[in-house]
């Protein structure tokens, strides 16, 4: 394993210490395992708390700041955080207007956030949750744990965060978060496996000419293994899968993200975005906003995910609203 680290055990606290040093505008608390806006709680505003396993940076810690998250709870690498973290975060950010938990749909995240919500309620904090489950690689049936939350998490955090910032109440912020999730679909392809510091070797072996199709963001294998193909074919296949599951139609507008999984250069992501953009144009779908870069990663995995969100009213205005976080910043 080749990584910049001191010991595998200290990887997470050391990385968080670096985050703290780099971002004086955040309160990084290693004891409670929380990253909080230093101006929290924001009076009269609903607060957003998210979190999940670490290893997906900048998600979630890089999205803490004005117009997005009030706090993030980084778990161990690829392991959802514990309820105590979310309780600490909720306590730190609640101004009385209530707290929205943005939860990616994984058994661990769901259970830990549920327990945290119970604890927070017991302490008199009003909590609602938005469950993000945008990954169409997983069938949403009683035969699975349900669709995973991946790229749409950023969309939910940005748009619901903007709703909170403009003063919407908890029910409305939760409602818009759920609508963003419902309007979003994602799918990911990996060229290589990722290596966690503790495992010290790649989660799976992938021959030089094969890709994992429908991978998650935790280094778990995908739903199938296929031959490496030209980028335009991969993009077409992925979009086909996404749009088969989406009711986007010609004339619709979309917010699109081509997201790197950590080990893929920006030039390749732009190349994929170019393909996505012309494929959508052929279907009469207009991309009105886009992100191209590493936002929801899997450590050093080479690969990318594509997320398509229908730009319903009032998503676009909230998307454009100011945001000032380490990893997403505009309008400020």
């Amino acid at each position: 394993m080749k990584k910049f680290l001191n010991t595998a055990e200290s990887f997470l606290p050391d990385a968080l210490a670096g985050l703290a040093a780099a971002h004086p505008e955040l309160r990084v608390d290693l004891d409670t395992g929380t990253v909080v806006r230093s101006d929290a709680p924001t009076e009269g505003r609903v607060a957003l708390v998210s979190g999940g396993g670490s290893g997906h940076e900048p998600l979630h810690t890089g999205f803490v700041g004005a117009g997005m998250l009030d706090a993030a709870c980084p778990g161990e690498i690829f392991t959802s955080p514990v309820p105590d973290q979310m309780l600490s975060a909720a306590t730190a950010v609640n101004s009385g207007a209530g707290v929205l938990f943005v939860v990616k749909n994984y058994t661990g995240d769901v259970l830990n956030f549920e327990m945290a919500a119970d604890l927070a309620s017991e302490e008199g904090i009003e909590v609602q949750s938005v469950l993000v489950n945008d990954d169409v690689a997983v069938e949403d049936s009683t035969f699975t744990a349900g669709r995973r939350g991946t790229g749409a998490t950023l969309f939910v955090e940005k748009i619901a965060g903007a709703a909170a910032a403009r003063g919407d109440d908890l029910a409305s912020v939760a409602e818009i978060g759920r609508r963003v999730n419902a309007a979003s679909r994602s799918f990911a392809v990996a060229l290589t496996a990722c290596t966690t510091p503790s495992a010290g070797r790649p989660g799976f072996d992938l021959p030089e000419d094969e890709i994992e199709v429908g991978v998650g963001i935790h280094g778990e294998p995908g739903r199938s293994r296929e031959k490496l193909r030209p980028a335009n074919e991969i993009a077409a296949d992925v979009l086909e899968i996404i749009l088969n599951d989406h009711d986007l139609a010609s004339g619709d507008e979309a917010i699109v993200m081509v997201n790197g999984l950590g080990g893929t250069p920006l030039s390749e992501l732009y190349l994929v975005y170019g393909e996505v953009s012309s494929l959508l144009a052929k279907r009469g779908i207009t991309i009105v906003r886009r992100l191209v870069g590493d936002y929801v990663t899997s450590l050093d995995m080479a690969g990318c995910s594509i997320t398509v969100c229908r730009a319903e009213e009032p998503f676009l205005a909230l998307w454009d609203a100011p945001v000032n976080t380490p990893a997403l910043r505009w309008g400020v």
Partner: protein
Amino acid sequence: MDIDLARAWVRAIAEAIEADKERLTRLDAEIGDGDHGNNMDRGFSAAVQALDTLTPGTAGDVLVKTGTTLISRVGGASGPLYGTVFRTAGKRLAAGDAGVADLAAALGAGLDSVCKLGSAQVGDKTMVDALSPAVDALSTAADSESDLGTATAAAAEAADKGAQSTVPLQARKGRASYLGPRSVGHLDPGAASTALIFRVLANVAAADPDAPRGGA
């Protein structure tokens, strides 16, 4: 089961998991995200530490403390799930020195709570596939008035078989379910750790000097 035995059990789990951490993680890498061994290790070593400063009134207190520690230290799916098993079982085991029937009832309550929390049932390829037959074996042993050593040996045997039974299954719960048919042919890591927990219980019960040699 008395306080000492409960403590010895948790300590032995921590040791066994530490020793077997890599296998559990490897199993999880195959059909999950490769952290189960670390998760369990982090949780049980924290539980051992927490117990060091606890003055428990009953064996149940030991298990409750273990469960709450798992919940607040493990994270992931296994943290809340195992945490709930131990916490629920511990609450039920409030009595002084619990016999086989008490233990069977306590762990049965733990099983029920985890099935409810994770909406899993036998055959979903989870820890429940090992836990459920182990609880059944304890109940059967209680019915036939076996001693703790015999009962826990039977439970360990059943948990092991239950874990092995997950190999041909397609996962319907947890991370492995994302793989669909690709999850077939792999041992579920949570079922493997449950089997280990019961194997260790049988070991500490067998070594227990206070263990009643006759019926429960």
